[in-house]
């Protein structure tokens, strides 16, 4: 096959006539599916028979070429060899994409789907290690935010929660190294507990079509995977250091990998990140420091027929919450909103005081698989996660310094997956998942926000993939999940009765205390989900993805059981015990043109969600502390419409223009009003200069424009002011103005020795030091967003 294609190449190649033949063709060879760089790929120039290999970074350089058209054959072990036609004019950069399929069949992939497509009938976005390193001092949410269709719901600047097509929290499933993160992801101010530096490749699927990970990903799925380890004797590592001016912080990450030809491999990675108070353009954002520590250990054996792996990750993050955001009632909120500056500004410090979060996440996983020729692959995985979340509020008296919230969430999951090739063209994936979860809320002298509970999940899925012909690929899958929750919850008697629960659920009352009721609800949810999709490959460049997905999500503990004051939001939040599952149906289309010079994708979608759970203000409650706005969860029918556009154009040698546009509109169909907290229209435009011939220098200037959100529900409320005897409106709904940010990013490589490369990067974010507030930042009432930041990146690969 290879020989054959090579012969064809030889036959149709034109021998170059020598003229000005000092040109260099350089670039990278990347995996067509996930953009990962391909090491030791061979490139042969037909006609001249020059042959080069890509280096450990997937890069190649071919010298002494003329201004002519060349045919280049690119091959890689286990890959389909592919011919490319390149027209040279001067030094040219070109990235070649190779189909990685064959390699996958041969490669022993320990974590099941490593680096391969997570779905074949939906457009998938990826962030490579290289791109992730640019966000090394930020968070996972910051990195994801750079993709079209993703925005972030922030609490200040350090709690960054990804928002996919307008949906977040429990609707976004995060898979970390094959393990579904269970880190109290329900809270809007809980950032994912995944260390960005431990990720080798990050994929984003903007929909629920990935049933093996769960049927409840109404918003989408984020898959983080560790870097692939080659099966050969090698020892390599990397140290990455970032120094930033804003927050006066440092981030240090180091990683070492050892592998053997017999398949054994080990990897260890650690990160320490410490920032003090961040700064807005005009003032210090007091108490916004962050102190993150994490490490991962991975040991495994990869063979063709079997493999086993053990993985452990520890993540701890201490995050300061803007001091000025801690309020006591609606009148404090009026003061905060009417004041252009935060009410509390202190001198810069690294100290993180209350209010703050201190989160620890342990994740351990063992996985093994066995492959039988002609049958398929069976894999078994057990994982354990422990998430301990401490939240510190400003407290009084003896409780000063104690956590207000102390939750420990333990999750055990057992997964059994089977991949079989039914026929040459039909693949079948089936699996069963069992999960046990328990939440334990310490008595902190404050009513429990999330009650103690035990939760059992059982899921079963099957997905069939059918390669009809060269052009059509079809996919269909179904999944069933059963969830049972056994809960112990103390309700306030006044709330219990005002909701009529005493009539509706008298059987779950265990005990009536002075002003509380102890209840033990047992909740059951049965959820069906499914996907149906097609991929149409018109030719090498044009592709169409069509996907319908049905996702069902059981309400999370916060939606069911919240009942109390949320300090950082200065509001009372009330869940609803009567909720049923939320069911989303999404149709997504993606038209893609892949071309090294001009490529684009257009991805419109329509998403109807019945029994969509949202939280919104309903009334104002008078307490001894004054007035508080009450936010209640409610179910409604929602519709989201949107479109993402990505485009990339090489307009001159080494110059590339990247464009991104994301639009989403969300409506509450029952009330006929816009949905709250929908991302405004956003567009990012970037000019990148990259020259692989000159130390791989990369200079990028990015413009990030966020429009004002003009569609929002009016949730303002009135508060009585005793001094004047009048009522004053608290404007909590008006979105802030549009803003425009300029960012600059650069890097350059230096070869230190044969084996090691030093990469120096220099980055400026918010170049013009623009003062702005973001509609999706929950602390936008209190302070401006981040001001200018300079950072220097040093990376040594060895």
């Amino acid at each position, binding site marked *: 096959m290879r020989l054959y294609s090579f012969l064809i190449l030889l036959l149709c190649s034109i021998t170059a006539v020598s003229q000005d033949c000092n040109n260099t063709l350089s670039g990278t060879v990347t995996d067509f599916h996930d953009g990962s760089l391909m090491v030791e790929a061979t490139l042969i120039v037909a006609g001249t028979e020059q042959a080069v290999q890509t280096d450990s970074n997937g890069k190649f350089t071919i010298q002494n070429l003329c201004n002519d058209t060349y045919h280049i054959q690119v091959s890689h072990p286990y890959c389909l060899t592919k011919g490319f036609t390149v027209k040279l004019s001067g030094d040219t950069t070109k990235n070649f994409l190779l189909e990685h399929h064959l390699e996958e069949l041969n490669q022993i992939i320990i974590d099941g789907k490593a680096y391969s497509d997570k779905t074949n009938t939906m457009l998938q976005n990826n962030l490579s290690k290289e791109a992730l390193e640019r966000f090394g001092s930020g968070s996972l949410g910051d990195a994801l935010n750079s993709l079209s269709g993703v925005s972030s719901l922030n609490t200040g600047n350090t709690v960054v929660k990804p928002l996919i097509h307008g949906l977040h929290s429990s609707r976004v499933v995060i898979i970390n190294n094959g393990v579904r993160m269970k880190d109290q992801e329900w809270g809007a101010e809980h950032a994912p507990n995944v260390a960005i530096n431990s990720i080798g490749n990050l994929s984003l699927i903007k929909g629920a079509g990935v049933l093996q990970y769960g049927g409840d990903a109404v918003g989408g799925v984020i898959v983080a995977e560790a870097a692939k380890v080659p099966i050969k004797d090698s020892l390599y590592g990397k140290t990455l250091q970032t120094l930033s001016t804003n927050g006066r912080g440092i981030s240090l990450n180091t990683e070492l990998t050892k592998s053997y030809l017999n398949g054994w491999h080990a990897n260890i990675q650690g990160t320490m990140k410490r920032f003090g108070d961040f700064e807005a353009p005009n003032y210090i954002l007091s108490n916004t420091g962050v102190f993150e520590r994490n490490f991962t250990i991975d040991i495994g054996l990869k063979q063709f027929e079997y493999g086993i792996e*053990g993985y452990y990750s520890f993540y701890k993050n201490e995050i300061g919450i803007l001091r000025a955001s801690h309020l006591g009632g609606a009148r404090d909120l009026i003061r905060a909103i009417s004041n252009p500056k935060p009410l509390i500004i202190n001198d810069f410090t690294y100290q993180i005081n209350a209010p703050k979060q201190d989160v620890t996440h342990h994740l351990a996983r063992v996985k093994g698989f066995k492959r039988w020729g002609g049958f398929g692959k069976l894999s078994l995985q057990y994982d354990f996660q422990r998430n301990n979340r401490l939240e510190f509020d400003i407290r009084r008296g003896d409780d000063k310094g104690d956590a207000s919230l102390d939750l420990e969430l333990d999750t055990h999951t057992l997964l059994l997956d089977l991949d079989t090739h039914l026929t040459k063209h039909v693949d079948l994936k089936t699996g069963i998942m069992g999960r046990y979860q328990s939440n334990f809320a310490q008595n902190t002298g404050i009513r429990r926000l999330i009650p103690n509970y035990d939760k059992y999940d059982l899921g079963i899925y099957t997905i069939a993939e059918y390669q009809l012909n060269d052009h059509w690929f079809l996919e269909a899958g179904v999944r069933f999940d059963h969830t049972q929750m056994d809960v112990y919850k*103390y309700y306030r008697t006044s709330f219990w009765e005002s909701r009529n629960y005493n009539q509706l659920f008298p059987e779950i009352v265990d005990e009536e205390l002075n002003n509380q009721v102890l209840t033990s609800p047992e909740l059951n949810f049965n959820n069906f989900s499914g996907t149906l999709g097609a991929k149409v490959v018109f030719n090498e460049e044009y592709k169409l993805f069509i996907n319908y997905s049905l996702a069902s999500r059981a309400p999370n503990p916060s939606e069911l059981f919240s009942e109390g004051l949320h300090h950082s939001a200065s509001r009372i939040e009330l869940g609803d015990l009567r909720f049923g599952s939320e069911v989303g149906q999404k149709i997504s289309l993606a038209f893609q043109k892949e071309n090294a010079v001009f490529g684009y994708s257009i991805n419109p979608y329509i998403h109807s969600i019945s029994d969509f759970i949202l939280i919104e203000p309903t009334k104002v409650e008078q307490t*001894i502390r*004054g007035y508080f706005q009450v936010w209640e969860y409610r179910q409604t029918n929602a519709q989201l419409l949107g479109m993402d556009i990505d485009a990339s154009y090489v307009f001159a040698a080494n110059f590339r223009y990247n464009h991104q546009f994301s639009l989403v509109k969300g409506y509450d169909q029952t009330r006929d009003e816009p949905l709250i907290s929908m991302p405004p229209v956003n567009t990012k435009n970037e000019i990148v200069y990259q020259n692989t011939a000159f130390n791989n220098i990369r200079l990028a200037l990015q413009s990030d424009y966020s429009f004002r959100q003009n569609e929002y529900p009016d949730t303002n409320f009135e508060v009585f002011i005793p*001094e004047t*005897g009048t009522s004053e409106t608290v404007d909590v709904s008006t979105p802030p103005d549009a803003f425009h940010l300029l960012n600059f990013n650069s890097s350059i490589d230096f070869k230190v020795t044969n084996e090691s490369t030093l990469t120096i990067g220099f980055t400026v974010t918010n170049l013009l030091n623009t003062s702005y507030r973001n509609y999706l930042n929950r602390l936008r009432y209190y302070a401006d967003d981040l001001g200018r930041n300079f950072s220097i990146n040093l990376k040594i690969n060895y």
Partner: protein
Amino acid sequence: MQMIWVEIFQSILKSIINFLNKNKMKQIKFLSTVLLAGLLLTACSKDNDTPEQAHEEELITTLKVTLTPSGGGTAILMEYKDLDGEGSDTPVVSVSNNLAAGVTYDGVIEVSNETEDPAEDITEEVKEENLEHQFFYTSGGGLDVTTSYSDSDDDGNDLGIEFTLTAGAASSGTLTFTLRHEPTKPNTGLSDAGGETDIAATFDVTIE
């Protein structure tokens, strides 16, 4: 409505967890257990019995103001009680009597948490943390009163547990008592005090 297979699944899971629990090394720290065990099969399931009731130690349910006429006479008692905290019940507000025009009163404030038994005296805490607290008195709606602080904190700034109130001409309106936590001290009043509101209790008051 319990499906059989759910039962089976639960019992399998529970037995696995029980097995693991038997082998758990409670005394060794979790992390080292994980590292040592290597296979990380330590599962520490929590005690799933009834959780203890959380006492809301910092809850303030009640504000009592006693106004004693300086020249002697029957004291006026004002009480603002909200027993369910942030719950849906509205606070119960009472004022025992109208104020008399031209009379100066010595005022004392008491705050407590009446969900505890016996009720917890929070005035004590305010006194202990006097540098971090201050009461404010605000009249509104045409009520003709003037107030002044009778006590001070350890730095000599106003505290306000004790105060004097002088009733002016016959009028009616509102009188609000505000307790701020971590205010800026000294200050000229609520407008520049900052901090967080711990109490904001408004009474309808008449001077006759």
